[in-house]
């Protein structure tokens, strides 16, 4: 599996217990963005279009709640754990920053609880295939209920937008302040613009 690694294979020169910040190779500051969306919506392609490393895959246990969500927002206490395959990539940015992109599935009638994964995340890009719009509902529900910054990226397969943004916004019932854009998971430029839109949105939320 291809991934960059330092040629330096010898023991670290850092004395045990020495403050890492004092070393020339200070630990990068790590941030992450969650890429959510239904099965085969293009999450891994999206991540791969911009990641420094080939997208890697791992398994993460997730706690899921059953669908017993009532109007008052009460959730059934029934929790079970399952594992899902999760793809991710990494981008090194100037200023010793590492940005991780974690792709996680979220569709179907179970509301996945991603508390563990999203803790400390900048926010989420919810990727949408308008042919299977309902697959993104759990993700939208989740980020909305947790007040986590998110944007909706409509993945245009074959570069074709099949629906107007306004129609999708209405169908998703997301407020006007949630950015909604067309994107193309295969395009580095489009992915870049999507991530820029999310970070700008997160900053606006922070400042607001």
């Amino acid at each position, binding site marked *: 599996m291809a991934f960059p690694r330092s040629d330096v294979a010898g023991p*670290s020169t850092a004395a045990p217990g020495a403050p890492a910040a004092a070393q020339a190779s200070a630990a990068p500051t790590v941030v992450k963005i969650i890429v959510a969306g239904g099965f085969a919506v293009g999450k891994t392609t999206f991540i791969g279009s911009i990641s420094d490393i080939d997208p890697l895959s*791992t398994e993460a246990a997730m706690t899921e709640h059953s669908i017993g969500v009532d109007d008052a927002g009460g959730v059934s206490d029934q929790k079970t754990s399952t*594992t899902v395959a999760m793809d991710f990539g990494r981008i090194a940015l100037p200023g010793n920053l590492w940005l991780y992109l974690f792709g996680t599935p979220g569709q179907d*009638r179970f509301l996945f609880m991603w508390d563990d994964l999203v803790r400390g995340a900048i926010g989420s890009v919810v990727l949408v295939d*308008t042919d299977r719009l309902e697959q993104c509902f759990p993700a939208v529900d989740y980020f909305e209920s947790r007040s986590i910054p998110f944007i909706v990226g409509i993945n245009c397969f074959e570069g074709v937008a099949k629906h107007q943004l306004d*129609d999708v916004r209405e169908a998703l019932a997301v407020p006007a302040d949630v950015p909604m854009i067309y994107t193309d998971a295969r395009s580095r430029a489009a992915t870049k613009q999507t991530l820029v839109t999310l970070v*700008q949105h997160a*900053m606006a939320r922070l*400042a607001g």
Partner: protein
Amino acid sequence: MALDPRHRGGAPPGTGADPFLAFEVVDEASYVRPYTVTGGRTRPKSEMLPIEALVRAVGRRSHTLSPEKRKIIELATGQYLSIAELSAHLHLPVGVLRVLVGDLMDESYVQVHGLAAAESSYNPATTLSVLESVLNGISAL
């Protein structure tokens, strides 16, 4: 084509289909077995290492460590690697890596960076200057 609307604040309409068929769910048998390398232990939730926490070996080695722990030290020597990356490279679930890395951290074989978010004292993702750097960095890609 008409778009089926989402019902706000509620669970989406169920399809009646087996949810596990549609999900990218991993076979449960392959999920349980790796926990044998942790002696069946999980780590207390309060000590959960963030999936993006960076691990780096401090230079100590030991032949008495398990092959998995030795592999972690090998991979995290001379570079930082996240729990997620270690999990992918070792083909073990994130939960297993949390336990193994936690052990190695307790035993001073590795340093783990990026725990701040979990401790909620400092979260880069809600620090404006960090977000500005991220924004500028992505824009310049």
